[in-house]
């Protein structure tokens, strides 16, 4: 099993354990229902930010044509930045904003970031397909 899969499984288990812990704390009366919900949403926001932070680092294989490399790099940067900021926004809203603001605000932030990431990736893919793939100049 690759380290990347192991790490992903470990993070998923951590999230599940945190959710179970929060549910237990809520059931035991240690925290209120709102507190448990906020804590879980903050955790999800930070998880998204942490994952997206590493997104631009995920390059692999031999370099392709300069255009493809440039577009790929730009798409990863746009996705990484937008999702990181969306994750931090979600965590910040659920930590400090009223529930009426945090709920729709975090959804709008994450949905916008996803739309931007996917939109830019599709545009970059289409731009690369319009020109022939020329190997990097040596």
């Amino acid at each position, binding site marked *: 099993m690759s380290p990347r899969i192991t790490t992903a499984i470990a993070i998923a288990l951590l999230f599940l354990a945190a959710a179970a812990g929060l549910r237990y704390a809520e059931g035991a009366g240690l925290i209120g229902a709102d507190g448990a919900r906020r804590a879980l949403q903050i955790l999800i926001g930070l998880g998204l930010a942490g994952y997206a932070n590493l997104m631009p*680092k995920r390059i692999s294989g031999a370099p392709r044509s300069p255009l493809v490399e440039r577009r790929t*790099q730009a798409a990863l940067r746009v996705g990484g*930045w937008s999702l990181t900021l969306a994750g931090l926004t979600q965590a910040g809203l659920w930590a400090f904003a009223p529930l009426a603001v945090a709920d729709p605000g975090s959804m709008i932030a994450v949905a916008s970031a996803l739309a931007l990431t996917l939109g830019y990736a599709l545009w970059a893919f289409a731009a690369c397909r319009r020109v022939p793939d020329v190997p990097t100049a*040596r």
Partner: protein
Amino acid sequence: MNKVFKALADPTRRRVLELLRQRPMTAGELSEQFAVSRPTMSAHFNVLREADLIDAHKQGTTITYRLKLSVLEDALLGFSQTFGIGNIAAPRPSKGDPS
């Protein structure tokens, strides 16, 4: 994280990262942009590679470098560039001294 800070503290290495932001470049193409010897540039590349800020791909005798910055590292690079960290302390890398 210490390696990242060390790598970003030098203006030459930051300039290398800025150049790689445009497109992947070979070691030769990058070296042409600086008035320092090739061994010095090679040492700079090693520091960047050890910090995992660039990716090196060797094909034959040519090494192609690609940018490999996380969002946090990208932000740190922008911060260092804005405030010119290391510009006064290390104005120009001398031959054989990459840091």
